[in-house]
């Protein structure tokens, strides 16, 4: 929820901002995903894990499908075609990433190490964005990139 109150507004909500709550929920959901993936990887291979993962995704897919159908934003057919293509590719690549993630856990990687290593994926994103989307890296991102390499080295020890 965006707050558009002026400084003179006499009462201010004591509730945390909605974006903060959604962000914290994301941390809890993704943080727990790392744990349950390791538990699952002790009993199934990466392929079966991906199959069951998709089963878990189904209820949310139905819900999101319903909201898309209800709200159905107006997009030009060209934009929709382009957007759907990239979204589909994102799903395929994301699924392949999942398989590699599950395989890392099956091959004995600890959840407490595999999760921080794989969470470094923005390093690839910023490099690709720099090359293909002509985005520029700030000093902070270069430092982040350097730290990421050091982190992977330390975590592999």
């Amino acid at each position, binding site marked *: 929820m965006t707050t558009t109150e002026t400084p003179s507004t006499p009462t201010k909500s004591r509730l945390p*901002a*909605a974006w*903060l709550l*959604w*962000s914290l929920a*994301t*941390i809890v*959901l*993704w*943080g727990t995903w790392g*744990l*349950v*993936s390791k538990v699952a990887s*002790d009993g*199934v*291979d990466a*392929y*079966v894990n991906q*199959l*069951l*993962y998709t089963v*878990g*995704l189904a209820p*949310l*897919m139905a819900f*999101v499908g319903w909201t*898309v159908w209800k*709200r159905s*934003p107006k*997009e030009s057919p060209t934009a*929709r075609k382009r*957007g*759907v*293509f990239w*979204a589909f590719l994102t799903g395929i*690549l994301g*699924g*392949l990433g999942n398989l590699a*993630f599950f*395989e*890392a856990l099956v*091959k004995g*990687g600890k959840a407490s*190490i595999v999760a*921080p*290593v*794989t*969470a*470094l*994926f*923005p390093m690839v*994103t910023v490099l*690709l964005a720099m090359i*293909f989307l002509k985005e520029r*890296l700030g000093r902070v991102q270069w430092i*982040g990139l350097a*730290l*990421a390499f050091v*982190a992977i080295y330390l975590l592999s*020890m």
Partner: protein
Amino acid sequence: MQLWLGFAVLALVFWGITGVTQKLSTNAISSERSFLWFCWAMVALSAVVLLVARPHAGLATIVVVSSIAGGALNGLGAWTSFRALESGGKASIVISLISLYPLLTVLLAVIFLGERLTWLQTAGACLAIAAAILLSLEGPPKEA
């Protein structure tokens, strides 16, 4: 390089590419429609996976429940992250904050799975989280 690390880096590369493709998608369509087609692609991939692997009978309940819960947790997490961005959170702050999620995984793995990290690995985990936050901050504007 240990085999598990190779796969972890492979996951990092695939997910890293999705950072770009997802952006290209949401530049053209809503995040909800994009997420829906992301899920359809997961279904398509799973159909292919089904050709090479079949879940056998006798899987432990905890394993099946954990695996299914994994899909639900990861999907819901993606959805809540979209909601955070749509609720007025600045992208640089929301994404940096969300980057803290491995911290929780480390904590839960230590508590519930009894995993132990060496001092160097602990330093590496802290650096990884710091790096993910720094990488998530918005860079300077594009060159004209």
